[in-house]
């Protein structure tokens, strides 16, 4: 059992009797200005956003390339022989050269349905769903800058991880090192992303940051966890302050009505007093009850349309006085459609709106609580990435190839195969996506295990290729494709990499606010409305185990799972907490019940009986 929950419940029971229940408080600041669209205009196109993006990220990708490979500019090339040279422009690439190329990834997906074909087809008044985008084995990657494009290929026989096409999406900015082949493609021997920038270290914590967090990643039911007692002993003090992340409350549908009430009772109650802020990461209301299209609605239909948000407003206004609240719009909410979604309009939430403790945030939402910087969105960017990625997204570790390639230096293609294979081993100890002592195998070490040994020849190539496809199967618990994808976004230093290509966003003219700028570096990155809970810590490439990293959290859909996530502001530990009720709810059975919650549930039952 996690220290957070442990402390929460063991601690709270001790304090239950006292009358002076004081809600934990923490300083708060919203930092959303860059997501604000003041005067929306739609006369411009999307290319300027790509230009802004590459302008912001190119220097950072180059810095990473210098660090990883000792890459030098063309002017320095003569003085530093043997170092890979950075190509100024993609169009200047020439056959046989080894170059470092920085550009925006373009993923060609032949099976992606074309909007043109859709509109050229039979006349229909119904809009077609293009969110279902398929990635296929025919997908190819190119790297593009303002001057042109170059196709990326992996060396023959290289493991899939050498260039995991399926894990990339259009819009990622990266540096690739490779040799231009006679057919004009760039044979990639390594790639790296803009360096992960860490925020300022946390204020002195009460407890040492635990790395054991990831052990909870899959286990909502942890009452029998062996760590229970140890953690309880370790955390002498109750956590100073927690932030509760919840998403997809699903108002407007009867599903989990009771669970929702339990959640609010818990937050408002004595046990929840340590929660200094509740953040709804999208999904206040369930999916629209009416198919809108271009139809004119009847009065009744209009009312029905407005019903869910009114219900949500009433519920939130009841809890808002007792705890600070942030509400972010999500895919189903009646907010703007384009990312960044602007805060839900005040007229939609007239009741909650009256409380100063109630804040309407944007999506993405960037805020600081008690000195901890949170950056998150309501899930659409992650869904968009996964829609354009293969089912098994690898945790992209740019250093996977980088280190050895830099050591190898020269242009000798002949040794590539071996180099690549060794890379896997050489970097097995490198930073990984879901590191944690409680987890036996890290993602990277798992990658290593699927790679053939360094001396393996052609015989093992097929096996390696085959294994690469089943990568996910070998991933340790807790490292899901979804978690990997979110971690990858952090490595790409971009909140929503495949905007605007795979996800509609506002056409920014001179900025790309989704780039994770160094000054905006978060302590916590979260994505709402996810199917399951998951968390991990992402650290800069090559940094040591246990060193500072960024906490990455998948906030599960409450409507689907009945779970919320608690984040300890002192340790950044993230824990899921489930609410379920045997009566009244027709939702899926909750995966487990926590003791404390059970109490609450019983209390709820009594309350219901009392009425």
């Amino acid at each position, binding site marked *: 059992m996690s220290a957070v929950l442990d402390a929460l419940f063991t601690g709270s029971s001790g304090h239950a009797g006292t009358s002076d229940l004081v809600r934990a408080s923490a300083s708060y600041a919203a930092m959303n200005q860059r997501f604000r669209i003041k005067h929306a205009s739609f006369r411009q196109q999307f290319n300027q956003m790509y230009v802004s993006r590459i302008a912001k990220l190119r220097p950072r990708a180059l810095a990473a390339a210098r660090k990883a490979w000792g890459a030098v500019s063309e002017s320095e090339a003569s003085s530093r022989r043997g170092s890979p040279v950075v190509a100024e422009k993609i169009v200047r690439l020439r056959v046989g050269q080894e170059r470092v190329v920085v550009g925006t990834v373009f993923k060609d997906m032949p099976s992606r349905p074309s909007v*043109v074909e859709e509109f050229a087809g039979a006349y229909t008044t119904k809009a077609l769903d293009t969110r279902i985008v398929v990635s296929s084995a025919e997908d190819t990657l190119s790297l593009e800058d303002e001057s042109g494009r170059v196709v990326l290929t992996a060396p023959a026989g290289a493991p899939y991880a050498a260039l995991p096409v399926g894990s990339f999406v259009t819009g990622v900015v990266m540096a690739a090192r490779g040799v231009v082949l006679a057919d004009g493609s760039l044979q990639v021997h390594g790639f790296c992303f803009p360096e992960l920038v860490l925020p300022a270290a946390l204020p002195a914590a009460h407890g040492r940051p635990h790395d054991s967090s990831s052990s909870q990643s899959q286990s909502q039911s942890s009452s029998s966890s062996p760590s229970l007692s140890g953690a309880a002993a370790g955390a002498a003090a109750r956590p100073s302050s927690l932030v509760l992340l919840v998403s997809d409350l699903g108002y407007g549908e009867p599903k989990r009505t009771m669970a929702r009430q339990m959640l609010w009772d818990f937050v408002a109650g004595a046990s929840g007093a340590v929660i200094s802020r509740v953040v709804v990461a999208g999904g206040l209301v369930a999916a629209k009850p009416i198919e809108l299209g271009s139809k004119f609605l009847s009065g009744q239909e209009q009312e029905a349309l407005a019903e869910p948000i009114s219900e949500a407003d009433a519920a939130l206004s009841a809890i808002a006085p007792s705890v600070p609240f942030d509400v972010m719009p999500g895919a189903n909410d009646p907010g703007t459609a384009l990312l960044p979604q602007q805060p839900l309009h*005040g007229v939609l939430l007239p009741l909650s709106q009256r409380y100063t403790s109630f804040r309407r945030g944007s999506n993405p939402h960037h805020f600081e609580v008690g000195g901890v910087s949170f950056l998150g969105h309501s899930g659409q960017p992650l869904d968009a990435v996964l829609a354009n990625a293969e089912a098994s997204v690898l945790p992209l570790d740019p250093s996977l190839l980088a280190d050895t390639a830099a050591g190898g230096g020269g242009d000798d293609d002949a040794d590539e195969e071996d180099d690549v294979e060794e890379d896997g081993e050489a970097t097995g100890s490198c930073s990984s996506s879901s590191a944690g002592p409680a987890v036996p195998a890290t993602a990277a070490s798992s990658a290593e295990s699927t790679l053939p040994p360094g001396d393996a020849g052609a015989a093992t190539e097929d096996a390696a290729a085959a294994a690469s496809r089943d990568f996910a199967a070998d991933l340790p618990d807790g490292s899901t494709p979804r978690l990997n994808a979110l971690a990858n976004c952090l490595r790409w230093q971009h909140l929503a990499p495949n905007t605007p290509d795979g996800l509609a966003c506002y056409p920014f003219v001179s900025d790309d606010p989704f780039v994770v700028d160094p000054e905006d570096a978060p302590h916590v990155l979260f994505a709402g409305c996810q199917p399951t809970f998951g968390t991990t810590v992402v650290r800069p490439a090559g940094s040591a185990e246990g060193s500072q990293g960024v906490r990455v959290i998948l906030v599960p859909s409450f409507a689907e799972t009945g779970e919320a996530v608690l984040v300890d502001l002192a340790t950044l530990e993230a824990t899921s907490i489930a609410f379920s009720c045997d009566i009244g709810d027709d939702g899926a059975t909750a995966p487990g019940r926590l003791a404390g919650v059970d109490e609450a549930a019983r209390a709820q039952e009594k309350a219901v009986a009392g009425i």
Partner: protein
Amino acid sequence: MAAASSTPAAPVRTKRPAEAAPGSAGKRTKASDFELELEAAIAAEAAGPASWQRVPLRAPVDPRKDDVVFQWIDIDMTDGDPLPSHPDPSKTLPGSRVGPVPVLRLYGVTDGGHSVMAHVHGFTPYFFCNSPPGFDAARDCAGFQASLEARLRSAVTGRDAAISRLVMAVQAEDGLQSIMGFHGDETATFLRVYVAAPTLVTKCRTILERGMRLGSGPELCYQCFEANTPFTLRFMIDNNITGSNYLELKRGTYRSRTGAARSGLAQVEVDVVYDSVVSHGIEGEWQRVAPFRILSFDIECQGRRGAFPDPKLDPVIQIANVVTEQGSSRPVVRNVMVLGTCTPIVGANVISFEDERSLLQAWSRFVRESDPDVMTGYNVDNFDIPYLMNRAATLGIADFPYLGRLRGVRTTMQNKTFQSAAFGRRESVETKIHGRVVLDMLEHMRRNHKLSSYSLNAVSAKFLGQQKEDVHHSIIADLQRGTADDRRRLAVYCLKDAYLPQRLIDKLMVVVNHVEMARVTGVPIDFILRRGQQVKVMSMLFRKCRAKDLLVPTLRKQQGAGDDGVAYEGATVIEPLRGFYTDPIATLDFASLYPSIMMAHNLCYSTLVDPKEVASLPEGACARAPTGHVFVLKSTKRGILPEILEELLAARTVAKRDMKAATDPMVRAVQNGRQLALKVSANSVYGFTGATVGQLPCLAISSTVTAYGRDMIHMTKEAVERIYTRANGFPADAVVVYGDTDSVMVKFGVPDVPTSMELGHQAAEEVTKLFPSPVRLEFEKVYSPYLLMNKKRYAGLYWTRPDKWDKLDAKGIETVRRDNCALVRRVVETVLRKILIEKSVEGAIAYTKEVIADLLQNKLDISLLVITKALGKAANSADYKAKQAHVELAERMRKRDPGSAPVVGDRVPYVIIQAPKGTPNYLKSEDPLYCLEKSLSVDAKWYLEHQLHRPLTRLFDPIVHNTSSLFIGDHTRVVSKKTPTSVKGGIMAFAKRSTKCMFKGCNVPLKDAKAVVCALHAPKVGEVYQLARERASALERDFGRLWTQCQRCQGSLHQDVICTAKDCPIFYMRRKVQMELDQQTKALDRFGDAW
């Protein structure tokens, strides 16, 4: 190189560089990403200008050792000095010994890809005329010659005047017949007149037709024969050379030209006498196609705002070139010549020029060096080539117009009017580029495919499945003035425009099909490209007549063979029993109906019996046709036309068999091209006899053909309905529901397709027995269900196999006509699908009503309503007698902004908008983009009445009792009330009610201009907001989808989309979304900032 091989007829193919290129890029190249394709050709980039040229000869041709084998592609003639002696010592030199004499030039390619030019000497032009009564060959020939010489001498001017002897010889020939009319065995003497130059033939003909005095005799008029054959064709016919076939010059029969003696640029240049040219028939190994070089190019000009580029003013800024060899899918050369600096393009050779003169000079040089056999592009005939020529003339570049294969011979242009029954009248510029065939793909598409749009974008979308970026010419100038990167962008665009015609050629097998047509009909490829159908039949007719000692008279214009040029009755149509048939309808077709009638009844010029002579013929020698014309039976004398047809159809059977048997896709393509050419040629024979303004019209034949055809259709109907009855033991009485020209549609009354097919086969066999061979009725397909709307208008599911239908077949239905908007096409297609495939008439009706409701409520996308028409010459409305909507619109647009207004040649897209009652239609046209910007409403009623009404009525008429119910009723009534307000307010009703309560249906005026709703509806403000927000969100999502699609299509993320392809289905939509979003965002602003 075949010439270097000493074994004749066994040419060794040299390894082509194109084949040597690695095929590694195949998998990765995406049709959607042109730049990736370019990258695949990077290997070509490294090599310099040297690689433009053909593979060099290993050694010069040795006339003593080498046979020259080549496939020719172009022929022309000139005059020159006669050869001093025959290159073949065993022969004597024919023709005149004093110059100038006509010399033919053949241009072609060997199997090794080397270019060949052969000067063919010794062939003398000639024609025939009848001999006057009492003409004594021994006595009168010389006199005839002298008289003609004298008359001719006074008529010739210019170059011909320098010829010392104009009439070379007059020869009396016996045993000949005119093809016109049946003459039995009676032959006559004709005079063959040889003249010194081809141009003299027409002059002689005029003199002889008008009358010439022979010695002291009376002035006599002569009938001329074969005096209208082009000289090149005459030469081909007499030497059994078909179009584009393989020719062989055996060693020892030709001389090779070297050094200064060369007049052309070909690698092999020879002199040969016509009697030494060996022509190979198209059998066996000679069916192959040589690796012709094809240059596809495109130019970009820097136009001024508001004007179509004018070669007198606007410079040529880029020329992109792609050279491919026939049979190889990879270009051997890709380059782009750019004015100013240009960032390199991977896979293409970018050549920068500082001034336009050197660019044009370099291109002219490039054409000569790369030496293409075929030049192609999109609209090169009427735009690119004339523009370059005129531009070079304006700049005074003297060495530019030498694009042909002859040293020092200028390329010239002339305006041409092309008239053909099949293709209509078309004015064009013809540029004679010696030795090269100019194959304009635009022209080709127009001639061979019926499309709603012939823009390169639309054509590539249809045939290559790729949308093409379309850059307006005003943007081209901006790009040119920009940076090297901007010019690169333009260069990529230009290259793509040069590449797509090449892709079309490959995909549609254009070169192969043309070569086959040339081989089958025996005319040069150039004739196929630039002339109508008639010359092909003429060629076949002349060839056949030559073998039969028949002469073809040269008729004066309108001089019909005994006809007055009166129209005759055409094919018949059995009155359709209109309706919707759910039972299968079997279709019985006469295979090649008209050709088989001509064969069966021996219809020909040479078998037509003069009515006066019918009585003199023995019993059973002839037959009277339904029209009263009498033709001799084939037992008496075989006609020429039936013989030609027999050969064509027999050859087609062989070609089809070979096609099926072929394993090599290239061979299959050749055979398919051939069988198509044969089919088209067979069918054009009938048309030839009926073309009253043609070369040899004979309405006796054509009217007889149609008369037999009509009888046969009626006989078939009668027979089927007589045999297939219940009384005869069949499941039901068969009914012929429709019949047209060569097919009858039979309802056997059986409910299932397999039985219907079986009966169809049976009936076809049975009925065939009624007709003389080779007429054959065939069972082809079953329609089930079948919607018979009217004559020539029907649709149905097409079955050729009993288990599964092949396709939805629709005839005569509004799907391709361009003056229909896309909505009509889509609605008709969808309705047909619903009726025929989904078998849901209710669904079709419901759908139709939904569309009509949407139309009347202005909910349709404007791109569905756009109608396009080409702006004709001189966009001056006075030029058009009746005012036309698109012309008026162009004029109005020019007043608004001369820069973006359409210019002559552009297609003008327009919609019909609402206007006060009584406004003439031509004033109601408006630019769709302008409509969007100004929120003008389209005239939904007009679209309903003028676009949808008729096609929908036709479709539904056989199915529902009262089609007018489709156009009146709830779905129209509800909205007709609404229309005035919502339409006036524009697309978004919200924008209009700026000071009214926004709650739906409230409309209470608000005092506070910033308020959103009235006091009564204040609690509903969230609801009102949500509704407006939902609309905006839907638009926002569309905005994202549409513009990112364009970003993908153009193949670049970092550059803005500049495409203005109006044919693209999303062109208007993306603009509409932009504008509506702006409006909707403003409407939402009333609620105040959300932050």
